[in-house]
């Protein structure tokens, strides 16, 4: 598996540099600080770009891969920037039984990304959730804050078409 997060923006790169230049004053160079440092970095930057992980590895004087190991192990860490819209496919018991994986596959195919990734244009990021509490509507996908029930692959297409039209309108009016 290779990670291809969307290219880092200038603004994000600035945040990375700022974080790395101040890291000294908040943390000591102990390996046990790795997780708190990563958490802080993600708080500041929004995710953990390669540049940040490499800088942290250098600061702690540990191999890059050790930082990568920890980041990929814990769900709380993101390798990809948040998209403009977040797509959360429910994989709770009811949604799983109701075809959650089929829905997940539909999102993956349509967006051209895998779980826990972000589209190159940064419009969408995709991930799973474990039961959002409305199992009667299974299978469920939460888009931003909104719960969408009884999702089918065609609904996925429909929802994405809606966003496309919205974007077109926006670009025409601007």
């Amino acid at each position: 598996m290779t990670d291809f997060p969307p290219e880092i923006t200038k603004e994000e790169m600035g945040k990375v540099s700022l974080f790395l230049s101040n890291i000294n004053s908040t943390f000591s160079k102990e390996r046990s600080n790795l997780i708190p440092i990563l958490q802080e970095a993600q708080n500041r930057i929004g995710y953990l770009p390669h540049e940040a992980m490499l800088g942290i590895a250098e600061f702690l004087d540990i191999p890059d891969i050790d930082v990568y190991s920890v980041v990929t192990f814990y769900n709380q860490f993101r390798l990809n920037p948040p998209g403009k819209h977040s797509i959360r496919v429910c994989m709770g018991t009811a949604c799983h039984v109701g075809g959650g994986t089929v829905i997940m596959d539909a999102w993956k195919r349509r967006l051209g990304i895998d779980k826990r990734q972000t589209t190159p244009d940064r419009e969408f990021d995709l991930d799973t959730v474990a039961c959002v509490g409305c199992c009667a509507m299974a299978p469920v996908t939460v888009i931003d804050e909104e719960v969408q029930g009884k999702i089918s692959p065609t609904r996925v297409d429909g929802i994405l078409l809606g966003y496309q039209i919205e974007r077109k309108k926006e670009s025409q009016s601007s």
Partner: protein
Amino acid sequence: MSSITLTIDNKKVTAPEGQSILWAALDNDIYIPNLCAIRERTDPAASCRLCFVEVEGKPMPVTACTEPITEGMVVNTKGTESQSLARTALELLLASHPVDCGHCAANNSCELQKAAKHLGVKLNTKRYRKLLKELPIDDSSPIFIYDPNKCVLCGKCVWKCHELGIGAIGFAYRGFDRMVTSFAGQPIGQSNCNQCMECVSICPVGALVAKENT
């Protein structure tokens, strides 16, 4: 260092104090299946779960690689319970292992084959549904090939690479996705690997092999 006398499979053996059952047995020509054990390593990974043995007086089987020997200890490497644990661990590994020994560079030197033979497990075990990883093979290094599909996640190469102060490879992801890889999943040939081949020589299976042997 003083030596300790113990019994393994009805055979009286002596071994240096501080050693684990696994090395005491192997040094005395008693085979116990193992994939992850490294002699120099002071904190055994104990991740492969193939080395279970039974020790008189202990209520449950123990992993031979972590259990230090004691004077007068009585070890049985062929106990029903310990062997059934080891078999299950091995069958789970085999369930996601592409068994194609005829085309594998590690054929006949493979620790999986050896363990399976010893434990009486078929390489094409039917007990668990086959689930392969289907990951791309990494041949970016000029001198070796890394096939993550064959990897049993013993961690020996990772340990060695770190021990040598290189740290080019490590574990990433978790659960079924867990794999040995380099930073950001880049091809090993593009990482800070210096082609020392130590990982190739320590790999107990055919996941890391020299190109000249393929």
